């Protein structure tokens, strides 16, 4: 058990490329911390530096109060789960799980006991004498987990451990990993590019982009209170809609409607009349106007021509056009914020998540309602969130 502290950790390669830039992160004892970001954001490099598989160029890494910068991986008392599991193909499940203990010259009886205990926890008992090649993807994943837990290390480091599984199994294993971590209470650093995994698993989530840590917060805070355009766009699925907006008095003109600004937002934009901003609205903060009851609170209704409707059964996604004259400015801001690194960054289309009872039809005009209190505003130059 231990906390992990990254103090200005930097990874600089020989060619001058900085994969991780002065990263500060404090992972508390027993915490489940997720590092999330698009590919190439430096999250795996950061994890490898914690593991000791990559040298730290600058900064100080502490595990359990001890500076471990110059220690070999084996002397850091950490266990790692790899994306491709990295199970030893020539060893049985039992030997794979006991390998680290065997190297540490633990008594064979003790090894057997620990391996069997872990196998029981992970439902692997009947597979102990099989080789990895003869196991299914989910079983291999569990062996990789087992190899980590038999060591009872100070911390677990997991590098996209679920990304090689099919969608259904991934959801199932996600729950198992969460339960396991909760029961063992071991400090865990978990790297993923999947924001759903990040949101569902972590106590806290660290969002990274191009080697820079953007925001560290609980999943709820990240979702409701993102610090910039990137975090706002990255967290949430479907992602937040961004439109160009112009402040006038205590109202904001959006391409499809004019919304009153809350007192808080008025404070955030200051009294700069005519200021241009990027407005962010989550898909679920739209609703079919006919289905809105009084309980949804204050909002504005407007008409939009629906281009596409996707029905998910439990909900319905309606896409409509943001108006092309605003698109350029939003696209520029979004690309500066790195949102083009994300999949499906079509800034032209706005998606609204509606109740399944909605009568939305492709090509028809629909009366939509938008929640005026849930609007987020961003600076178009810096991408920073505007707050009071």
């Amino acid at each position: 058990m231990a906390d992990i502290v990254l103090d200005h950790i930097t990874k600089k390669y020989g060619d001058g490329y900085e994969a991780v830039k002065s990263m500060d992160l404090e992972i508390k004892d027993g915490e489940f911390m997720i590092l999330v970001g698009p590919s190439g954001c430096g999250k795996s490099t950061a994890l490898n530096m914690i593991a000791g598989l990559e040298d730290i160029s600058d900064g100080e890494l502490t595990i359990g109060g001890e500076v471990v910068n110059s220690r070999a991986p084996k002397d850091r008392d950490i266990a790692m789960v790899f994306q491709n599991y990295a199970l030893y193909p020539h060893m049985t499940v039992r030997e794979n799980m006991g390998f680290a203990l065997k190297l540490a010259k633990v008594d064979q009886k003790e090894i057997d006991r620990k391996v069997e205990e872990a196998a029981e926890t992970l439902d692997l008992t009947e597979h102990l004498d099989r080789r990895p090649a003869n196991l299914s993807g989910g079983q291999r994943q569990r062996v990789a987990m087992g190899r980590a837990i038999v060591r009872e290390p100070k911390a677990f480091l997991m590098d996209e451990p679920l990304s090689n599984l099919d969608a259904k199994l991934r959801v199932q294993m996600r729950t198992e990993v969460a339960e396991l971590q909760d029961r063992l209470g071991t400090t865990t650093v978990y790297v993923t590019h999947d924001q759903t995994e990040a949101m569902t698993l972590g106590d806290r989530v660290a969002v990274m982009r191009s080697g820079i840590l953007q925001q560290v917060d609980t999943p709820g805070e990240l979702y409701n209170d993102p610090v910039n355009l990137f975090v706002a766009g990255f967290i949430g699925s479907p992602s937040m809609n961004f439109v160009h907006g112009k402040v006038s008095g205590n109202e904001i003109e959006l391409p499809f409607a004019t919304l009153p600004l809350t007192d808080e937002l008025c404070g955030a934009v200051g009294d700069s009349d005519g200021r241009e901003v990027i407005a962010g609205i989550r898909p679920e903060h739209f609703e079919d106007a006919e289905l809105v009851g009084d309980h949804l609170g204050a909002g504005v209704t407007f008409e939009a021509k629906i281009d596409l409707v996707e029905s998910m059964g439990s909900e319905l996604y309606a896409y409509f056009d943001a108006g092309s004259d605003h698109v350029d400015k939003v696209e520029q801001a979004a690309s500066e914020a790195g949102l083009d690194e994300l999949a499906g960054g079509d800034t032209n289309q706005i998606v609204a998540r509606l109740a399944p009872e909605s009568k939305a039809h492709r090509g028809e005009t629909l009366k939509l309602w938008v929640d005026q209190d849930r609007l987020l505003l961003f600076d178009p130059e810096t991408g920073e969130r505007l707050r009071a």
Partner: protein
Amino acid sequence: MTDRARSERRLGWLLCAPAAVAMLAVTAYPIGYAFVLSLQRVDLRFPEEGGFVGFDNYSAVLSSELWWTDLFNTIFLSVISVSIELCLGMAIALVMHRAIFGRGVVRTSVLIPYGIVTVVAAFSWQFAFAPDTGFVNQLPLIADDKDWFGERFSAFSVIIMAEVWKTTPFMALLLLAGLTTIDDGLYSAAKVDGASAWQRFTRITLPLMKPAILVALLFRTLDAFRIFDTIFIMTGGAQDTQSVSILGYQQLISRLNLGLGSAVSVLIFLCVLVIAVIFVKGLGARQPESGRA
């Protein structure tokens, strides 16, 4: 089996047939012919004395001391040179695999000895070790008048050296092929698991390279067992350094005794067959480990 499957299978055999016929013409026919010759008295010096003699030629070979000396020489040379080649080849393969810069240059330069004609290489080494003109005797710690080819085991050491120098690159290349199939992630996992560099080599690299090592050993042992050129150039078989291949050559070409020479050739073929079977068994025994259901 459906008609379609049957006709496809027939087409398959038809397409293979030309290659199979060519293979049989160049392998099965000479082996069969050598076997037929080995059962007859065929001596080109006495062409009129011919006829079937059964296994007389074999008993002549097997009861001669020369055959057993030569067989010992051949096995001795094979075992020693292949063992040295395996160790050196493994070291070179590891270097080639890890080389970060100049990979191409390293690999090419390592391969150069293998590209040189054996006879040329043998002559070069013979000159190098020649007592009067060679440079080896000029080196410190070596007697100026040492006659390397005048004594059996010093001649062996030069022969082994020349063989090792020439064929280690081949061994290294085969081992390198095996080395590249090992997932780098396993080494990361082993590092985190606490394995030292030596433990990673013995517990990860070696077991996973077992098939590649066996294939490399098979190829090289078969090759080494048929050693001819180097000995022929360096000693010509003097000082009891003759190999079985040289014995066969002498009977067939120098003495023109085709019957006896063919018997030697067939015996060499049988030895090679035994070696191959042993290695292939070793390879086969490994398979269930990776593919057991």
